């Protein structure tokens, strides 16, 4: 009897050891947990909530097809309130509660803050909410990224302006946030100034949370800047345009992709500026996002649908890739296997949002080709003015 009990215990121990799925965090026989840490409140909630719903749509799509090898995909999102310290707290909570992989990694500064923990814990992550060069350069074993960096997104616009609409006596300027996101914005500016050998004013930095840009725009005016990177995140962009319009400054303006979101365009409309933006995915409402919208309508409430924007699309693509990588691991997926599948070089279908995406062992970044967009906030239009290209 004793021997048979001992045998049973040994068998259990061996089967546990040989069944990696049982030992893996964030996975049970019935569920796989994919986590997000996103700004669900604060000024960035407009984009954070959308990214969350993008993940929810991808999970709903997978679950409707029977889940991932029989397991349902569960999306758990922690709110970081657009505060990097809370991004770290969010990740700690995910780790405590068990998470298999991560999609939303907070904004730029938040992503930078959690990179060492992701590496230490070996958590597969696909950065998609706020592309950060440092996430993949140098390569972190378990961290991947889709989307061009802010450097590329802004440099593409400055290049377009330089080649097509460069004002006489061009003088470049930048107003940027005082954090990791802003650092990338300034790098795009410096790169453009060096590449085009144009005159430039000193970069102007502002603290996160600042809403009034009177002094900053007065500096832009006194420096004679006529090509400006308005490096706001959301509502800062219309505020900069408003102050510029007060002095009727003749500006060519480059912005980050949030400037194409309807609420930001609505706020920018009264000030008479068309501006540029850049993106690496098909815009909402285009043929490329038709499948996404179809699935979204089937899986979200009407109120949730209203919250969708381009950040929902990037969240959807990244979550879809993570789910597919797990699916390719078969019945007993592990984090190591998911990472292996992601960097295998095999294509991941994005349902038409982009061309099929791939990662490789020496390239943890994908969807980096940028298209420059002209935004007319009065007409509510976003028009591509270039094809997708690498910068």
């Amino acid at each position, binding site marked *: 009897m004793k021997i048979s009990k001992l045998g049973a215990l040994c068998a259990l121990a061996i089967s546990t050891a040989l069944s990696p799925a049982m030992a893996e965090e964030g996975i049970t026989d019935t569920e796989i947990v994919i986590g997000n840490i996103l700004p669900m409140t*604060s000024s960035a*909630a407009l984009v954070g*909530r959308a990214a969350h719903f993008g993940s929810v749509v991808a999970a709903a799509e997978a679950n409707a097809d029977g889940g991932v090898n029989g397991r349902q995909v569960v999306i758990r999102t922690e709110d970081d309130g657009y505060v990097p310290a809370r991004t770290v707290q969010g990740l700690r909570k995910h780790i405590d509660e068990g998470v298999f992989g991560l999609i939303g990694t907070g904004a730029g500064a938040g992503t930078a803050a959690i990179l060492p923990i992701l590496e230490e814990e070996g958590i597969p992550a696909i950065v998609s909410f706020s592309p950060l060069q440092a996430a993949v350069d140098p390569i972190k074993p378990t961290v991947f990224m889709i989307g061009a960096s802010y450097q590329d997104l802004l440099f593409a616009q400055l290049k377009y302006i330089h080649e097509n609409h460069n004002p006489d006596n061009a003088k470049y300027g930048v107003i940027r946030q005082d954090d990791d996101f802003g650092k990338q914005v300034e790098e795009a500016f410096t790169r453009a100034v060096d590449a085009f050998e144009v005159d430039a004013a000193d970069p*102007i930095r502002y*603290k996160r949370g600042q809403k*009034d840009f009177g*002094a900053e725009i*007065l500096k832009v005016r006194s420096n004679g800047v006529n090509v400006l990177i308005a490096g706001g995140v959301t509502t800062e962009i*219309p505020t900069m345009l408003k102050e510029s319009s007060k002095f009727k400054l003749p500006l060519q303006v480059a912005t980050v992709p949030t400037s194409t979101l309807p609420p930001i365009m609505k706020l920018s409309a009264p000030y008479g500026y068309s501006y540029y933006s850049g993106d690496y995915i098909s815009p909402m409402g285009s043929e490329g996002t038709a499948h996404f919208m179809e699935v979204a309508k089937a899986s979200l409430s009407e109120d949730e649908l209203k919250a969708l924007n381009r950040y929902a699309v990037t969240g959807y693509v990244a979550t879809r890739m993570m789910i597919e990588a797990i699916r390719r691991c078969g019945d007993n997926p592990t984090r190591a296997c998911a990472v292996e599948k992601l960097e295998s070089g095999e294509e991941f279908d994005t349902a038409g949002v982009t061309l099929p995406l791939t990662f490789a062992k020496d390239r943890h970044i994908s969807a980096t080709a940028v298209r420059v967009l002209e935004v007319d906030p009065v007409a509510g239009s976003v028009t591509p003015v270039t094809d997708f290209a690498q910068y």
Partner: protein
Amino acid sequence: MDLFLNLVASGLVIGSIYGIIAIAFAVIFKTTGVLNFAQGEVMMLVAYVSWSLGTELSLSFPVLVIVSIGVAALIGIIVERLFIRPMIGQPIFAIVMVTIGLAVMLRSLIVIFWGADAEPFNAAIEGGLVEIGPVVLFTEQLFAIILFFAIMTAVFLFFRFTRIGIAMRATAMDETAALLMGVDVRRISALAWAIAAVVSGLAGITFAIMFSRAPDLWFQGLRAFPATILGGLDSPLGSGFGGLIIGVIGDLSEGYIGQGLKEISGFIVIIIVLMVRPYGLFGEKELERV
């Protein structure tokens, strides 16, 4: 000179908003000894309600302001009755913690009811340009400065010449003595919260018109708090001027020096002032008999 004057004007605009919010902080502190860390959130709630009234009912701006003042007073009274009055007699620290909890709750409720998107606050005072010599201001920016001085005058007259204002000052000086003299201390507390909600609410509405009605509006409450410290926590008028000082110094330092000094310069001034006058520029030194 052109740059200097425009920087001063720009600083006065944002300083006016800080100043008005700082007055609200000081009114509650002076009367009840409580630091209301939900002041920014109360301001945001009033601005959101006002935005809804303006959007749904298409009220003219003067009518909207009058209705909003009524709504703000009601919000102030309700907050005081529900959250502060039950705490009377408890340590101040506990009451301050309640205000912090209230702040978090209001922020969440606002996002639940109105959503996370920013919206323009369209009002008749918005959009025009006013040129005063080389200085250019939007009409709503000029409105902010005028509102500041109007509130400063009203607060001065209220505390100086009205029976209720004098009763509030008496309560602030010695609550027990005021009670013995027949002052209804509880009503005074409710009134202080109502006044603070109205004053900060007007700042919130003006700020939303200048920028947008967005769920991070509460943050301005936090930014205005140093103005209260600079002016003197127990001095509503001093706090108001503290806001102007911080606004103007911030914009001048950003305009001439830069490097993000806009945010830091105000704090540098506060440190220097507090080293010389620990009770703020216009605050009263507290004397204790032993």
